[in-house]
């Protein structure tokens, strides 16, 4: 009988991997890069604390501006909270899934204390000592009432909970969770190629990373560290994580200013998304203002202007501000020459509001003309829409005759 080892090799040998057996690193590696060794009853781990001056610029924002941002717009955070209640949180893990085998090897947190911003790193140099790290880490983050992350709801914070549960620690991590991925998606999904943090940073925060170690390399570098024990090999990962934490702060500030209307939108799409968000929360005035800015801007493309026309006219209609709504529809009709929509809105307005059947009939006819034009050029036109319009025209014909004779 061949040995088990031979049979294992026969079936599983991965030829891409080097042949040399991994050395088993039993003793604790040396701390470096400003880390110190911490020890408690459950084992040891590495920790470092860095104070970063508030004047530090992160892209277009300085850290200190968080003070002015206060606890953030109510669109970001429903509860009242001071800047010192915020815990900025980001992790590095050994894989992407959320299962029990995905280990967090680096926990990065950031928070305000008096006149500095503090970044702390909890790093796991020996996998078997996870309980020691977790115990201290959970204690450290307990006082904060709000956690700020990027995709942390689905991933980082969720994964922290998995780790805690695995070690049977009681879970007391129920906090207000401000996951900046969701507002970012809401504002930028339509014009950014993706809403990954690095993409958002460079497009919206004016931040360019230098010598960044991409996040997807982190697991391999960590595995390498476990094998060889050289902490310096992970320097890039620590810097990457620190940058992520700082980016979170800048993004928080940026979103706050945008949402409070204190910072003008940088892109027409962003303005549109912002206006819609306000509108959905009943903030009509800022919504109308940002739509108005889009409509008075010179280089705003028609597809954006069309939305701005539609949304602001909808607000005005709801408010009963008919004269402004009428003005907008008219402008929209002239400018958006292929679009039957403003014509229909005007027809409704004349028919039901001012009861002027002649202009109602004219605009309805114009809408039908535009529909037919679209259809002739091969654009899709729904039959339902056409039928509804024809029906309106027939009714208006009757009413018009009624008013003539």
């Amino acid at each position, binding site marked *: 009988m061949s040995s088990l080892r031979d049979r294992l090799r026969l079936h599983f*040998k991965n030829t891409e991997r080097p042949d040399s057996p*991994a050395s088993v690193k039993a003793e604790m590696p040396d701390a470096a890069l400003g880390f110190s060794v911490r020890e408690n009853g459950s084992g040891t781990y590495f920790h470092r604390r860095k104070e970063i001056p508030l004047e530090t610029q992160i892209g277009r924002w300085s850290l200190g501006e968080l003070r002015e941002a206060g606890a953030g717009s109510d669109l970001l955070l429903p509860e009242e909270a001071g800047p010192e209640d915020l815990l900025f949180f980001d992790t590095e893990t*050994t894989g992407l899934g959320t299962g*029990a*085998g995905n280990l967090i090897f680096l926990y990065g947190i950031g928070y305000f204390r008096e006149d500095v911003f503090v970044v702390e790193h909890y790093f796991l140099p020996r*996998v078997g000592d996870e309980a020691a790290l977790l115990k201290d880490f959970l204690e450290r983050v307990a006082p904060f009432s709000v956690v700020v992350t990027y995709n942390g709801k689905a991933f980082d914070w969720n994964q922290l*909970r*998995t780790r805690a549960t695995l070690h049977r620690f009681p879970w007391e991590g129920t906090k207000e969770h401000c996951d900046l991925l969701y507002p970012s998606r809401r504002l930028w999904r339509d014009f950014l190629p993706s809403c990954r943090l690095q993409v958002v940073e460079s497009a919206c925060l004016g931040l360019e990373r230098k010598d960044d170690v991409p996040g997807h390399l982190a697991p391999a570098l960590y595995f390498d560290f476990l094998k060889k024990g050289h902490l310096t090999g992970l320097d890039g990962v620590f810097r990457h994580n620190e940058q992520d934490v700082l980016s979170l702060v800048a993004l928080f500030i940026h979103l706050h200013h945008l949402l409070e209307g204190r910072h003008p939108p940088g892109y027409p799409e962003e303005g549109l998304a912002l206006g819609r968000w306000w509108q959905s929360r009943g903030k009509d005035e800022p919504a109308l203002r940002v739509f108005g800015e889009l409509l008075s801007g010179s280089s705003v493309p028609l597809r954006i202007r069309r939305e701005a026309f539609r949304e602001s006219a909808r607000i005005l209609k709801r408010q009963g501000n008919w004269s402004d709504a009428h003005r907008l529809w008219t402008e929209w009709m002239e400018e958006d020459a292929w679009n039957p929509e403003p014509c229909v809105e005007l027809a409704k307005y004349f028919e039901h509001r001012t009861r002027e059947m002649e202009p109602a009939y004219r605009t309805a006819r114009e809408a039908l003309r535009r529909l037919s034009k679209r259809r002739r050029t091969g654009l899709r036109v729904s039959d339902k829409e056409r039928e509804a319009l024809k029906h309106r025209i027939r009714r208006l014909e009757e009413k018009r005759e009624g008013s003539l004779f």
Partner: protein
Amino acid sequence: MNAKMLIDHMKSRVDIRKHVTRWETVPAKPARFAGFPRRLHPDLVEVLRSRGIRELYTHQATAVEKVLEGNNIVTVTPTASGKTLCYNLPVLQRILEEPEARALYIFPTKALAHDQMAELNRLIEAMGRDIKGYTYDGDTPAAARQAIRRAGHIVVTNPDMLHQAVLPHHTKWVKLFENLRYIVIDELHAYRGVFGSHFANVLRRLKRICRHYGSDPQFILSSATIANPQAFAEKLTGSSVTLVDNNGAPTDEKHFVFFNPPVVNPALGIRRSSVLEARRLAEELIRNDVQTIVFARSRVRVEVLLTYLQEVLPGKVRGYRGGYLPTQRRAIEQGLRTGDVRGVVSTNALELGIDIGELEACVICGYPGTIASTWQQAGRAGRRQGASVTFLVASSNPLDQYVIEHPEYFLKQTPEHALVQPDNLVILVNHIKCAAYELPFEEGEEFGVATTKEVLDFLVEERVLHRTGGRWYWMDQSFPAKDISLRSAAQENFIVIDISETGNHRVLGEVDRFSAPTLIHEEAIYLHEGVQYQVEKLDYEEKKAYVRQVDVDYYTDANLAVQLKVLEVEREERDGPNRSKNMGEVTVNALATLFKKIKFNTHENIGSGPIHLPEEEMHTTAYWLTVEEAVADRFNREDLQSGLVGLANVLAHLAPLYLMCDPRDLGVAAQVKAVHNGKPTLFLYDKYPGGVGLSEKLFDLHKELLKTARDHIRRCPCEEGCPSCTGPAVETGSRGKGLTLSLIEELLDEHAI
């Protein structure tokens, strides 16, 4: 005419009688009752009484008592014997006594899970207690999942979901695992072969996680009749299990009829189509208002038979198979129970315990492959009151013909052993990876095998695990459960896609990796349920074959150069003067070289072409039969070749009879001069890397297998070999049948030549 009268009438008719090789009548059996177990909760007693149940059947009472005493049990009962109470009663009892208690129900398919859930909910509702049961599968809405994880007393799921969704995310199921008291596994017999070997490892992982959370659940298992229920249950669960088989459910008189369609071409051994014969019988039954179920082996046959039978009774005959929508299925099941549906044509989908009430007649078109399956299907007709009949209609394939010509074998033989090989190295190692992902391995921990540590150390070398502080940790970016499918034999099957209709490409079927080069090479004629398709493109990288329906007068036959190399002889025994049996590890290399186009009827070779595909290599276990020199010397080389090939054909078809496996799980190779010992040798090997235990069993069966082969060939009415025995004469020559027989005779001869 009621069923009893019709059965008697059919029995007396000459046109039916003359094709019947055996008309077996199983007499009625009265019910045997036992009182409610003393410990049974008054609420449960009341619910049972309110449903008209005054006593339990003996097996139900025993099952409940044994479980309440703390045993793991496996109940073995035929269809429709009230097995669900065997597990529902103790589970509900425990939850009544301990409201935090949890139970996990595992069913092999989603449909069964839903069916059982409905049944369970009716029981819970009648009790009026706050007990929550939920199904948890791929269809469960994300919003509902959290509540199920936290609050479900009874979670009903399937092995795949357990493997990929529940176990790797066990931290989200703390409540369940901390309080898990019972694991209920129904249809245990479904977990045999490769699927079962995977499942046994999933259960090892499940038990491991329970230990982590401090629970030690009992197993309540339920199986159809197989030869080895207790041993099988113990091997699957890795726990000792008590057998409960004192079935007390009554049955009325049952008729089991072996029906062989008439021979239409004696020279080629071709019989009238089993589909047409099944149709004739089913038509008569349905026309006479006997509620009938027809089983066919493939989806296409289901559809064909359905078309015929619907003409008899429009609107009252329905089809039932995978691919129908769940709501459609529920409606059909309901119609069967109420009697509105008078006939149903099904694949083996209805073989498992979905509740469709008790039918009066069953027509099985083609032997289902195993005795256990056949009894399961026949059990669909069989009532507590009123006679029932099952017709088994044989096709021309050798296994069918063997069974139909040897009804005594079928009736006397204990059903097959369910085989499972949880320690298959490939399967085991893959699940050790999953287990390590779920929880680190501790020093000294065993995962099914004593050599666990060696495997763990190997995985450290392979940089999948990381060893530190006396533990082994998962240290890889991947999610191991994702790459392991519990169901497919070889991990990567090829799928065959029909592109005949533009815009409506559909998957026809799957071909395992090792058969792909001969069956679906480009230009091959791929036969699927009697329809011809030509392979237009084989995307080897993506493992897809694109085929288009054609109508040609030839089939293709690929030359496969199979090289089988013995790596290691594990067992060797010369058990007769002229033969020896062996078992061991082998490497199988298969290289498809060229294919021939062969005309139907005349078997002329009308063209050929090369096949350019990479060689396949597999390490597995094999059983082989060696012909000793004395015998070999009595044949010339061609005759020996012919006899060996004939024997190979018979054994390849008959071996699955004993193994309860799919014929496709077994490979066969004949060598007139084997590489390792120079003697004529016949190999049968597991077609799964590492082997799943088929070869070991064949080694034990060796002599019985030869005798069975001899008897079968002798009784086959063909003249010079046919597809039902040694194979068509084109393969073995015109004397193939005779040569094969004399080879077997010599082998079985107990006196040295």
